């Protein structure tokens, strides 16, 4: 994993798009169960991440991504 600043940036995207408290954005949190995010929320979240980190995430890469930790791994793998 990358440094704290990277995770902070990731977390602020989640807080902004998913409107959840920052302390709920932890690696083991599941998007649908813990963060109450539906499929459109995830699309918006990924868009926010793409913009914040200047990366491109293909739809196929999101297969199986269910938790904050998995999404964060995906982002950092592209940095």
């Amino acid at each position, binding site marked *: 994993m990358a440094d704290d600043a990277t995770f902070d940036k990731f977390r602020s995207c989640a807080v902004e798009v*998913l*409107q959840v408290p920052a302390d709920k954005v932890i690696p083991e949190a599941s998007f649908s169960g813990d963060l*109450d995010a539906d499929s*459109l929320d995830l*699309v*918006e979240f990924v*868009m926010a991440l*793409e*913009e914040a980190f200047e990366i491109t995430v293909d739809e196929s890469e999101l297969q199986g991504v269910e938790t904050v930790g998995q999404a964060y791994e995906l982002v950092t793998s592209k940095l």
Partner: protein
Amino acid sequence: MTLAAEHAHRRRRRVAVTGIGVVSCCGTGKDAFFDGLCAPAPQGIRRVPDFDPTAWFDPKVARQTDRFAQFSVAAAAMAIEDAGGLHADPLRAGVIFGTGVGGLETLQEQLGVLIAKGARRVSPRLVPMMMANAGAAAISMRWELRGPCETVVTACAAGTHSIGNAFRLIADGRCDLVITGGAEAAINDVGGQPSIGVAAFTNMTAMSTSGISRPFDVRRDGFVIAEGGAALVLEEYERAEARGAHIYAEVLGAASTADAYHITAPAPGGSGAIACMELALEDAGLAPGQITHINGHGTSTPLNDLAEAEAINKVFGNPGPPVTSIKGVTGHSLAAAGALEAVAVILSLERQLIPPTDGLDQLDPEIHLDVVTGGPRPFSPGPVLSNSFGFGGHNGCLVIGPASP
């Protein structure tokens, strides 16, 4: 009355108004709204001041809901609370809610994103936020109403047509309860860019250049654009009575016609409006002389007000019953207008007071109406006609009378 109309009348169920909710430039909530109608008008474009969506939505849903749909839900929430909750089988409870242009502000915002950042950044929420039925859908989902849920899109007549259609669903026996009304929010600047709605209406030359709404006045020069929303709870009359609901009023009849003439100008002599008013009277089983007051469309445009006045004279004589246009205060909120005006009628019946036409100083000498001006006028409640006429040549009329056991 024709034989067919008489037959329809005998089979039909009565429809009560049991709740009202308002979001408007001159007040949110029914009491503030009616007080606002009897006070001096706000200045300039009529925005709803200090509307806080988080009073009605959690922050995440507020972000995902266009302002017009926020108004729809807020007005419905107030109306449902006013009615003392919902009392109907969900499958027999519906939503008929109008808008003119739906989520135009969201569309403008996302066009900005498209141009600045490209197609990959356009929000996946754009369609469900901007679609005209978003307001009706949000109401249905929030209160789990599973009967018909539909949106009427007839420009400035949509609020009135929605209430007419909701009335029909109950009168004909399909529903026992319908949440109805209309909402509009298409006048706010978006992301630092001027509102495309205001720009478009300005360039149509339908808007007042003076910024003053003065229906029926000789100096009127167009409408002042507005936003807002209003909702009614309609219930089958006997059920409402049986549960001890407060019944504000009874919807007695409704009608809808088209000019089939021009996309924005009314038909000469108001022929479409005349037909609509006559059909509404027939639907209510009333003669013109039984109408005690008319809440006019009265937009403050040169063409509308003259055509409407001619149409009223043709149906009701000269000058006919007292007429008011609340658009002197509210401005023209497109689809919300008919719903706000229905609420104004209902509160006029309850308070036995017709709000004045603000901004009217000097009646156009070509307009031969008894326009209520200067201050609210006491009246003895009886059947009231409410008119709405929309771009596209859509005409809508409602007849609403006092509650009577």
